[in-house]
């Protein structure tokens, strides 16, 4: 039987995929668009790192690869690796401030976008690394970070208000 916490994480994951398929294409700005799958995985990595371990990022990444195009396994690899590292790093550097989860989350997003971009370049995407970073990785990262911060603050506040699982959520100071 799944705990309510895990059910919430699964529902969130499904919502992230739906948002990516339905909403993200209409948010394209100067070639960049947010990646709700990355945003959601990184939020979970810093707020509920033990909820699903590496399985949830892997499955989400694989679904992204299959549904949104690109080499199958590229996003799965990037999300699994960097969400795991983000949760590990966060467990070490967390100092109960708001800055630290956002910084770790942002770093995870940046490395995931960069790693995915490198995979695409290896698969023959017609651009050089500098252009790829300048025109896709960084703009997409900024988009992800802005949405990530908003969603992180909302979910944290929501959990604090409901009082459910408050011990799992980072306290805001």
């Amino acid at each position: 039987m799944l705990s309510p916490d895990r059910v919430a994480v699964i529902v969130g994951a499904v919502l992230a995929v739906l948002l990516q398929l339905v909403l993200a294409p209409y948010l394209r700005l100067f070639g960049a668009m947010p990646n709700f799958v990355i945003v959601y995985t990184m939020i979970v990595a810093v707020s509920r790192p033990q909820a699903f371990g590496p399985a949830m990022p892997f499955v989400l990444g694989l679904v992204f690869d299959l549904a949104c195009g690109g080499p199958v396994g590229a996003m799965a690899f990037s999300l699994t690796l960097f969400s795991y590292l983000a949760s590990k790093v966060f467990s070490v550097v967390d100092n109960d401030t708001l800055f630290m989860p956002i910084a770790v989350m942002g770093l995870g997003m940046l490395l995931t976008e960069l790693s995915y971009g490198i995979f695409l370049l290896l698969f023959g995407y017609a651009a050089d690394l500098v252009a790829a970073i300048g025109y896709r990785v960084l703009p997409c990262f900024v988009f992800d970070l802005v949405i990530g911060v908003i969603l992180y603050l909302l979910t944290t506040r929501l959990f604090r208000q409901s009082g459910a699982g408050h011990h799992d959520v980072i306290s805001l100071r």
Partner: protein
Amino acid sequence: MNPLLQQNGPSPARNAVFVALLVVSLVAVTVYGREGSTGPLHSVQHIFSVASAQVNSVGAGIGSAAESAGEGIADATASDSTLSALREQNEQLRQMLSNAEEYQKEAERLQGLLDMKQASGVTGPVAHIIGRSANAWDQSITIDLGSDDGVQSGMTILGSTGVIGQVSSTTAKTSTVRLLTDANSGAAVMIQSSRKTGIVRGSITGVLYLEDLDEGVIPEVGDVIVTSGLGGSYQRGLIVGAVVSVNKTASNSTGSIVVSPNDSAALLEEVIVVFSASDIDAVEKQAAEEAARAQPEAEGESEEAGYEDEERSYEEGGE
């Protein structure tokens, strides 16, 4: 410190799963890269892309539904606040005007496509854009016609004023179109005035570059670029865009030539799938014949008008 991490900590089993999933991902990437487009991973991806296209089309529906709901809420608020029959009538008229404007815009778009079909001599159905790529690295759209409607991979897609891309994959009911502005797109083209051939390539910035021109051929700003049909990837004689800048560099004798696409897929809602196109030479020949045919008729008309004038002046003089 996160209490959950402190309490549980990463177990060896979890680490093993983590490493295993990374290995599986890398194996999948390697297999995907080595297998052909008919390989198992590509096939699974194709099935998922069909499903995601359906979800994506729901997104377009949600967008218009949200718009209608917003209008409905605004209408309801207005009638509640005013309770005036005149205001209600005003709202109804506004709604009708809004609908009429929507129909007018759609009619203008379709007229534009029809004009484009007639001008370029293409045959093919009009398709609605039902989805756009959910991956920032990919510039593609999904249309509501598929292999059941006769659409095949490689077919050219036209907007209201020019080529916008090519069908990259099809399902029974939908097709994915890779836009010309995608970094991995390319089309064999020629400069309409000089007939010199080259390749128009998309880029990560979304700008089209004209490359691979013959040595020493430098187009002028404003030169029209049309598809050449070489290689068979695009139908011949369709307008791609116009040269907007030519920057000659030391490393490249023809310089960096930027082409402004005639049409932007971001603004389109309908497109034409080109099943066949008249050969450009035939089109030009036909246009020349029509012009030649029109000239004697015009001369004939002017002669007739001259006779009428003479008769009129004769009659006036007689009176």
